[in-house]
């Protein structure tokens, strides 16, 4: 099977790249072995959130200070602003309405109630532009009875520390009570599938209107809006006070929707999305990749002029560690990683971890290196790249989208 480009990995980076190429008329195949880390995303994108533990307020400026090994530096710091605008537009075209801009970070609120710098946030989510000027003082934090994926105590405490006057209010409706029969599966995504009828939303709105007395802002866990934002709009029209969603622990409804909308848009543009298949090996001719064999297509490899590796980090199996080494499992590409196992991790989950900066080695055009030489038509994007740290630097989603758009330009121009 031949298309112009084959992308390995169907997460944020693979889909961004696939959409951008398909829009320019390319025929693209994406092979994705499973769902992606977007299911962990609460509804925000980050360009650059922290450098050495200090929050970044103006990411475009801060990007200029990053070392040459960082993917942003390889793309070129001067190109970031333009690519960031393009990324925001691509999301909007796919039906994902986000607010924010690359010149100044705003704050998103994590499920644990911590404010983190962000670049873009879904319109319906709580977003704070300036921590000294909160959007409201008195907030009603509505907590769904029996729903575990929102640690309400920590969230309320975190919001109080930011200066909100928080009242945590537990509530339920008949619809929600009936869902509790299977408490182990009372997850955000299950709620979102069930709480869709206008009457179910009205019963929730009634509870909120009864219980939220003098609050100026109502916060509700983000368990609505499986396919689009209309459930939020419906709820807001029923709730008498301004309403915002707060992110929940994964699996996240907002992240699932972003994934589904991007995939849908990609398919609308004529792209092939092979869900549940995985790339297992490649056929090379010198420094050129000719084809990729997948587990399910078997003896019919995916052939293309260009290939893009968007297979994610360890959690998505884009990188694998065994007892001896860290490696890239499909092509055995060169990786930037420490050799000694003791150096990979540090004790304490919240400590900066060396392994989170590991990834495949690339040249300045993000071409993958194998045996010290770049493969001419294989580029890497997103979290499989080395030199960045989604957890500690808050640059994961930005790197995913911007590297995807940057290699698109390389592929189209034939450079």
């Amino acid at each position, binding site marked *: *099977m*031949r298309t112009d480009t084959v992308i390995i990995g169907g997460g944020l980076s693979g889909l961004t790249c696939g959409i951008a190429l398909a829009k320019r008329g390319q025929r693209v*195949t994406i092979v994705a*072995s*499973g*769902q*992606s880390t977007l*299911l962990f995303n609460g509804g925000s994108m980050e360009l650059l959130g922290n450098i050495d533990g200090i929050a970044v307020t103006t990411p475009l400026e801060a990007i200029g200070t990053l070392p040459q090994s960082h993917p942003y530096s390889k793309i070129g710091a001067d190109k970031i602003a333009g690519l960031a605008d393009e990324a925001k537009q691509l999301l909007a075209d796919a039906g994902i309405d986000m607010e924010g801009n690359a010149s100044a970070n705003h704050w998103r609120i994590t499920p644990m109630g911590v404010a983190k710098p962000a670049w873009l946030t879904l319109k319906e989510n709580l977003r704070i532009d300036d921590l000294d000027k909160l959007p409201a003082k008195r907030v009603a934090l509505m907590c769904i009875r029996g729903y575990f994926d929102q640690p309400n105590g920590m969230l309320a405490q975190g919001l109080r520390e930011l200066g909100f006057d928080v009242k945590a209010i537990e509530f339920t409706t008949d619809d929600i009570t*009936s*869902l*509790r*029969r*299977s408490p*182990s*599966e009372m*997850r955000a*995504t*299950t709620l979102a*599938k*069930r709480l869709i009828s206008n009457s179910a939303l009205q019963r929730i709105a009634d509870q909120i209107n009864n219980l939220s007395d003098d609050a100026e802002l109502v916060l509700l866990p983000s368990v609505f809006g499986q396919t689009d934002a209309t459930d939020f709009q419906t709820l807001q029209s029923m709730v008498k006070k301004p309403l915002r969603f707060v992110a929940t622990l*994964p*699996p996240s409804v907002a992240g*699932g929707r972003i994934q*589904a909308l991007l*995939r*849908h848009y990609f*398919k609308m543009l004529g792209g*092939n999305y*092979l*869900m*549940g*298949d995985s790339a297992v090996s490649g056929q090379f001719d010198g420094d050129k990749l000719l084809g990729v064999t*997948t*587990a*399910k*297509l*078997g*003896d*019919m490899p995916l052939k293309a002029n260009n290939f893009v590796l968007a297979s994610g980090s360890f*959690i*998505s*199996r884009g990188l694998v560690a*065994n*007892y*001896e080494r860290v490696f890239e499992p499909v092509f055995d590409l060169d990786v930037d990683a420490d050799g000694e196992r003791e150096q990979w991790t540090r004790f304490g989950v919240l400590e900066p971890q060396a392994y989170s900066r590991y990834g495949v080695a690339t040249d300045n055009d993000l071409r993958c290196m194998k045996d010290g030489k770049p493969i001419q038509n294989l580029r890497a994007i997103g979290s499989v790249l080395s030199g960045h740290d989604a957890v500690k630097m808050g640059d994961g989603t930005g790197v995913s989208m911007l590297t995807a758009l940057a290699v698109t330009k390389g592929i189209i121009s034939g450079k």
Partner: protein
Amino acid sequence: MAERMQLCNISDNNFEQCTKCSICTTVCPVAAVTTDYPGPKQAGPDGERYRLKDHAYYDKALKLCLNCKRCEVACPSGVNIADIIQHARMKAGEGQRASLRDTMLANTDLLGMVANLVAPVANATLGLAPTKLVMDSVMAIDKHRTFPAYSRTKFTTWFKRHAAKEQDAYPNHVSYFHGCYVNYNFPKLGQDLVKLMNAVGYGVHLLDKEQCCGVALIANGLYKQAKRQARTNADSIRKSVKDDHLTVLTTSSSCTFNLRDEYPSLLGVDTSDVRDGIMIATRFIYNLVDEEKIKLIFKQDFKKRMAYHTACHMQRMGWQLYSIELLRRIPGLDLQVLEQECCGISGTYGFKKENYERSQAIGSILFKHIEDAKVEAVITDCETCKWQIEMSTGLPVENPISVLADALDVEATRRANGLQI
């Protein structure tokens, strides 16, 4: 040390690979519509830990699983969730007898054979209001269901009478596992395949002995019978692939998945040596076209707008690409590829009264997408999806092979492939 540690961590099914991310639960069509079902994570890897200790932890709700495999497709860690669930069900079902209703639904070929002899009567009676009511109350087959119509002439009879003789004259050859649906309900699909393959220079041959693949037997707990039939089919397929060097083509995604993957994983009937020789016809044809070994020429005046629905088992095999890409080659076809959703029927599941409402609730998302697509017909590789979609949307549903055969300019294609017309 490294090797030893790995060994400790490997079970028959790979439930230990589960990282508890819950992604599977987000795609399970059953968990989405009922709280009676605990969802794939709980029913599969989580429950397995308990069941390993003591099978008394088996939860009857596992019967609600459709075996649609969407959970497996979504799992980032490659856990064979639905297999784990099916095995637990098989273990729980050992020594129990299936009900008359389940036996009847499961024996698609037996039912087909009888109905076939009396097709006009069967079609009339199975569709009649009083019969439906009896089936509903006595047999617990939901009254809303329409049984697929039975054909008067079996596919095999037609083939022997009208097609078999000339097949040897073609330069290349394949075998065809037609399945119960083609044989008893819809011979036209088999005829379309013969027409298409012949036009590109391939003679089509039946297997020495074909029995129902048994997908419905497995779903209804008739494992012994399923195993017997699987052995017969495996032998015939082996003869075709190994001795005669003929690839075995199919036109049903569920039969195909069953023959290739469920025979070894659920029934313990090893087909791994011939697995690569069994494939859905669109894959075989696509490959020939891609390698420029054959040419397809389509009619100038074929103009249709149709939607492609990826059947769950087709997605599990990862082969929808072949059907879609072949269909895209038809110039007059405006093809809308639908988001993958489960139609809710899952073979015989939706025929059972206790499942009817759930089945329709599951399918409602797909039906809405079909309605929004504004098409004149739907295309899918699975016959039970076809029944469900036809009943629920009123639109006709066709197999990709029939659409290709319909759009094909047979004479021009035969000529382009160097055949005497």
